[in-house]
């Protein structure tokens, strides 16, 4: 389980599944007859087990890309593959949502009317793949692994926001997903909680073989977590620069003060700032 590839700077989990291939994807919104291009011929290859950080200003169209992979939205043209299997493309504009790709939402989407453990057990219960007793046993042990024991019978509204995020990730992992799609999940957290969440996320990642597609506008977050960061242009959205973060995993918070981290910040901050300015000038709304 705990097999981390050491050696080259760009170490990642030995995962055999979860490679995403995005080919020339275009998404045009046409709300009132005025076509808006959100994603413009975007191509990206994410190998299995990589933490790929998608960086760009708010509203640049990165969420559109995530929604296309998750199957919440259709694409206008192009193709998206998961492990060589077509998710969406010509003839099938919208992917089917499925438990192989699970989204962790911006504002959290734990069901407030279910206790934490019922939330965690939700996926397998719905899919009916295992017995109820087995599901709850697995849920209990996975929650314990993530330091969540004692909160099983609480409702999400009763625990801290940091704990809620963790429950949500465990809920996703219960389904043995190939890919986790994060849509700026830590955006609303204060910086202290955020730093704790980052370490917790890495800890969970080191134990589970998943590919992580992580959207953020926070450069520090991107460098700290990612194997690679993809800096996006503002609307229409396409990769502007792809950068390998050559700081070896496993990482902890001491990385933040390392010289290499500072160098990477310096290298990228200008690029991101430029896009943010463009986005600001275009008057993009938050979101």
């Amino acid at each position, binding site marked *: 389980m705990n097999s981390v590839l050491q050696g080259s700077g760009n170490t990642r989990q030995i995962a055999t599944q979860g490679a995403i291939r995005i080919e020339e994807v275009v998404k045009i919104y046409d709300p009132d007859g005025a076509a808006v291009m959100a994603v413009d011929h975007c191509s990206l290859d994410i190998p299995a087990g990589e933490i790929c950080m998608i960086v760009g200003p708010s509203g640049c169209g990165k969420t559109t890309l995530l929604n296309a992979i*998750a*199957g*919440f939205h259709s694409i206008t043209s192009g193709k998206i593959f998961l492990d060589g299997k077509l998710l969406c493309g010509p003839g099938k504009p919208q992917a089917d*949502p*499925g*438990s192989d*790709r*699970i*989204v962790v*939402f*911006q*504002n959290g*989407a734990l*069901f*407030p*009317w*279910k*206790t934490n453990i019922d939330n965690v057990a*939700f*996926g397998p219960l*719905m*899919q009916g793949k295992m017995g109820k007793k087995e599901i709850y046993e697995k849920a209990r042990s996975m929650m314990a692994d993530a*330091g*969540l*024991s*004692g*909160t099983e*019978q*609480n*409702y999400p*509204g*009763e*625990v*801290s926001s*940091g*704990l809620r995020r*963790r429950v949500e990730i465990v*809920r*996703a992992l219960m*389904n043995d997903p190939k890919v986790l799609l994060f849509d700026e999940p830590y955006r609303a957290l*204060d910086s*202290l*909680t955020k*730093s*704790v969440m980052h370490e917790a996320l890495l800890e969970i990642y080191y134990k589970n073989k998943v590919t992580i597609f992580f959207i953020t506008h926070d450069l520090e977050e991107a460098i700290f977590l990612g194997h690679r960061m993809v800096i996006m242009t503002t609307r229409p959205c396409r990769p502007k620069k792809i950068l390998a973060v050559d700081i070896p995993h496993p990482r*902890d*918070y*001491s990385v933040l003060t390392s010289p290499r981290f500072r160098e990477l910040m310096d290298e990228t901050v200008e690029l991101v700032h430029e896009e943010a300015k463009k986005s600001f000038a275009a008057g993009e709304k938050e979101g």
Partner: protein
Amino acid sequence: MDQISALLKRAMPFQMVGPDVLASIAGLAKWKSHAKGDVIYQMGAEADDIYLVSSGSVQHTMTGNNGAAAIEKTMRSGDVFGWAAVMPAQARLATTVCLERTELVRINGAALINLFKSSPVIGDVVMSRFATMITREFGIASSVADKVRRLPQGARSTAELKVQSAPPTGLALTMFRFSQWISSPKPYLMLTGFAILLGLWHFTVTVWELPRFESMPGLTVVVKEMFSQNPVYGLSVFTPEYYQHIGVSVRRVAIAFFLATVLGVSLGLFLGWSKKFREFVFPVFEILRPIPILAWVPLAILMFAGTETPVIFLTFLASFFATALNTMLGVESIDESYSRAAYCLGANKWQVFREVITPGAMPFIFTGLQISVGVAWFSLVAGEMVSGQFGLGYVINTAYTMVTYPTIIIGMITLGFVGYTTSAMVRFAGNYMMQWRVRELALGGN
């Protein structure tokens, strides 16, 4: 001692504790005054007591792991700190210094734990509130908080632990809330409100005899009539007719409300859930909804035979619209990410309807039901005034034509009480079915 109890009652972990246990906790407490700049304890020192701030302020500095930035927090009146004392073999995690002249109450941690061993249920509530407070206010990882959460069970088996650590639900929670309510100023304010209303009635009608008020029945007349063994006008709480009228009205409302809830909730859920269904049903619904219930009276009498069915139909109609509309709004209010998350987790459309849409709309449904039970009484009385042989509306209408004014007021007061009771029952059912909401709100300090 009372002062300590009052202070404890304000502190988040002890809010739910009943007066007896609170008094025993207060018995363990000691007052201590500190001057500005006094160090109460240093990080790493042995943790013995927990502290409550009575007045003044204390700087609480916690240095994180791996040299992470220190977390500073100023503790003020009603805040609790020094909770390392209730964790097993834990040294102080922070350094605390008085920022001004400060009055503190200190309670020995070990003694507190000992006390909880004799009342484990309350102990559990306090400890889990400690844990919540620590995670929320100090951003401490839950793994540390867990130590607190699990503490008082020491000697007990894990099976017992499971049962004990469940927060109070159902009846226990209601009892907690009732005891809190009765010891707050709320019930006394409520009584004052009633006293003002009755006073106004008595003075305007009987004492001052204001113009246009003189023919109204006075407070004393009504009360005498209502509780008379031999009522002048034939209706009091001692006559069987009184209960017959109530019974008939309640039965009509019950039937109408039940039908309106079953049909209204289902229609509302489908209206909110299926866009197609909504396209052809909602416009019709929206045209029918604003038609006042009184306008339906002739049609109701024409359509239904007898006197009973038209009244029930009218009562049903008003409730039904209120429930259906609120349910639909409830479905619309559900954040899209909930259903998206459910689809991601492998749920099919029907499962999303059952597991996400229905519970998610629940708060709105119950708001709708509150309104619906109110309009049910409203339209019932309207219906009973027009047609019907029994019922409270019938009582009021007949009393008016027979010039037996005190009976009108008896009917009105009875409607008020019965209506309030049904509304309270709906609210109670709602709280029972939405424990998650009750508990969320309880933590919000309500």
